[in-house]
């Protein structure tokens, strides 16, 4: 490795100096974060002076600080090694510095407000913690318990179906809407705003409106029965949000069978859950639509011209030019969609509270109840364990998606 340096023979010690410095910086920053995020109570009394806070920390948070210290040492060493390696080479040194300079605002804010909280949550998942008393070590007990609790398992089941059905639908809908909007010249602004309306109205209101639509005596039943009535087909009004019959169960029932109650996991997504899915696509597709709209602007129109001169029709142009060029955005929408659907909470909280028969339970809803103690004592540790199980699942899926969808665009 050629070391082209401008410095005199002080070069090696400069390197080591920077390496040691980076170790120290990483270590100190992480420990400060840990200190502030320690599982203690807060408030004016505790924070009155440095001593009072440190006493509080000593009371509850020493194991936590120990764990973070280990992490900090490892990361610090990694940082030191990187700096040591990159420092002599001016081009790579500039890259390193510029890279972190551009990342600086993000890093500062995230280190202050996010990293500490995440570390805290990770640590807590291995303990029993009710906020007001020191955390009690519990090892893997919380994780084991999560996998045995029916509510959590049913939540996972529901949310996997949810993601499976909603993500492709909303992505496809978003692309189609964007392409539709992009092809019209007059009144473009007007139609764009109209199409965006569902995403703009607050989710609370849209949920309430849909709850009203979904009533047995509501609009949706009304329209369907009128529509089918013109063909002479009779329609029995469904209580959409209260109907627990699963998709697969309905198919089985059409053939005269049924799926018993204790094999609930075979029943597929319930009608209630699917009603929420529809509402979800309705509200999120426009948001993803505007991302696709932005992406469509970057496609060089000359490509289309050339293609149509070669005889390609609209359909071909769409599949062979538009879709491949949209790949990075498709990945974006799919990943964000997966993250969003696997964490669905608001609609369940407002509309169904996990019912009927637990067919709209979601992991986040279950862990919300434990984290905030709505049904019993606060069990933060158990909730944190569930959160991390979910996070690992999400990470796994999105990792696969990134591998699969984006593997060819690296060569762009």
């Amino acid at each position, binding site marked *: 490795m050629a070391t082209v340096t401008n410095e005199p023979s002080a070069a090696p010690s400069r390197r080591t100096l920077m390496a040691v410095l980076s170790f120290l910086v990483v270590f100190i920053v992480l420990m400060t974060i840990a200190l502030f995020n320690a599982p203690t109570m807060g408030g*004016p*009394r505790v924070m009155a002076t440095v001593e009072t806070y440190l006493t509080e920390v000593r009371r509850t948070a020493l194991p936590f600080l120990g764990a973070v210290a280990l992490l900090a040492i490892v990361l610090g060493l990694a940082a030191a090694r990187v700096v040591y390696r990159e420092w002599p080479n001016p081009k790579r040194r500039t890259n390193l510095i510029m890279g972190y300079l551009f990342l600086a605002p993000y890093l500062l804010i995230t280190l202050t407000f996010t990293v500490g909280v995440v570390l805290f949550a990770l640590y807590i998942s291995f303990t029993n913690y009710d906020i007001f008393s020191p955390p009690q070590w519990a090892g893997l007990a919380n994780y084991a318990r999560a996998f045995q609790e029916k509510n959590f398992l049913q939540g996972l089941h529901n949310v996997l179906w949810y993601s499976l059905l909603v993500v492709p639908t909303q992505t496809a809908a978003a692309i189609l809407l964007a392409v539709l909007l992009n092809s019209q010249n007059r009144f473009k602004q007007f139609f764009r705003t109209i199409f965006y309306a569902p995403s703009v109205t607050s989710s609370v209101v849209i949920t309430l409106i849909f709850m009203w639509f979904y009533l047995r*005596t509501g609009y949706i039943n009304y329209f369907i029965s009128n529509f089918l009535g013109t063909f002479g087909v009779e329609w029995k009004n469904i209580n959409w949000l209260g109907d627990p019959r699963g998709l697969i169960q309905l198919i089985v029932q059409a053939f005269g069978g049924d799926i018993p109650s204790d094999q609930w996991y075979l029943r597929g997504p319930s009608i209630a859950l699917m009603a929420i899915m529809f509402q979800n696509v309705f509200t999120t597709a426009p948001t993803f639509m505007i991302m696709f709209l932005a992406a469509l602007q970057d496609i060089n129109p000359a490509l289309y011209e050339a293609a149509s001169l070669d005889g390609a029709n609209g359909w071909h142009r769409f599949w062979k030019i538009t879709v491949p060029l949209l790949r990075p955005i498709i990945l974006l929408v799919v990943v964000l969609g997966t993250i969003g659907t696997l964490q669905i909470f608001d609609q369940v909280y407002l509309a169904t509270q996990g019912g009927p028969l637990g067919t709209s339970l979601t992991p986040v809803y279950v862990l919300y109840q434990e984290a905030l103690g709505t049904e*019993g004592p606060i069990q933060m540790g158990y909730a944190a364990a569930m959160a991390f199980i979910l996070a690992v699942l999400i990470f796994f899926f999105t990792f696969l998606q990134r591998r699969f969808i984006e593997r060819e665009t690296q060569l762009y």
Partner: protein
Amino acid sequence: MKSLSKLLALLFIGVMLLAACAPATTPTEAPATVAPATEPATEAPMTEAPTEAPTGEVPVTGSCPLPVEEGATIVFSGWGDETEQQIYRDSIERFGSVCPGVTVDYQPVPTEFQDKLKAQMAGGTAPDVFYIDDQLMTAFVPTGQLLALDPYMEEAGVSSDDFIPALMTIFTQDGQTYALPKDWGTLGLVYLPAAFEAAGIDEPTDDWTWEDMRAAAQAIADTGTYGGFCMGPDWARFAPFVFSNGGAFASEDNTTATLDTPEVKEMANFVAEMKEEGSLVTPSDVGATWCGEAIGLELVGMTTEGGWMVNFMKQTYPDVEWKAVQIPAGPVTRADVIFTNGIGVNAATEFPNAAAALAMYLTSAENQAEIVNTGFAYSTHPEQADLVQDPNDLAISGGGLLPDTRVAYWGPSTGAVNTAVSQALERVFLGDQDVDTAFAQAQEEAQAALGGGR
């Protein structure tokens, strides 16, 4: 691009300028805003109350319950819509005239009150005085976040016996009182006279039993125009059935769930049969979101609802005529379920005397009487039971004073136990399981919660 960034810059500057020009925030003080005199005829009931009070426990107007700290400033928080907020603002003003020198900062939290309070308590920034319900009792009492009020009560001459006994069960633990009840609600039999007329049967009376109700529901359902009896799969609506049969969801010491006992299952079968025969409907069966709405929309003949029906019907369905009688009796006794909330004090408060004084004043007979007059809630003092003005409200409230009436409180995991019951009812109503299976499952779930879900 230039015009765009100009636009953005203008937007930003505009917002900043407006923010700067907006009126400066007024420092928070004891409510300087004079509450408009809204309560009609507050004086008359006031003079009635003492003459009817058996023991004359009404504190003398004009004296503070406790000697308060000099220049105390306390923060008071609770939930509630506009009406409730106004009521408490008025109460605080009355408190201010009785205990001058205490500044109360009222910070209502419109929703998610429990979540916010728990966060604040964890962060050490919780208010000094706040609403308490059973969920908050569970969260705060075991770890000592609430101030035990007994020494302050003794000094002020306030005793637990001043309050309706059933209400104090939630707020007392290990012999210590941690909150004082601020209001309560209960269920009564609410009905549409029109439905009874259509079915050609007599209207309910205060002597009714559940069997009477069932027969009437059947008759009304037969008319085809109205549903019979409306009931959702809700533990709160099921509780009176169980209590009136001498049962409960858990044992006396809250360690064993009793959901598979005959008392509970008999009543479960009762409602299940009613559902099957069509005399019982759920709100979603008739296209309403809750049974009160079903009454307002004139879709059903009867239901069990509480005092909130008065204001709800007045505001939303003023033209619909409805009436109420006391909760019907069961095979063993007549008993009702009570819902209550209290006012407690933060153990970390800097001004315990002032805070305790506020808590005691808000729940005092004097203040409670004022609140009853607004029709907002019932008084927590038994001797003020007949201050309720609306006759329907009065009929409903009667259920709260019955000797066997109780709160559906089963210790720290109350929520989980009650949810198990609601879910069992849901499974039965949806035909997913029969009563025995459903309640056996509920028994398991409730027992797991009670046995320490750790």
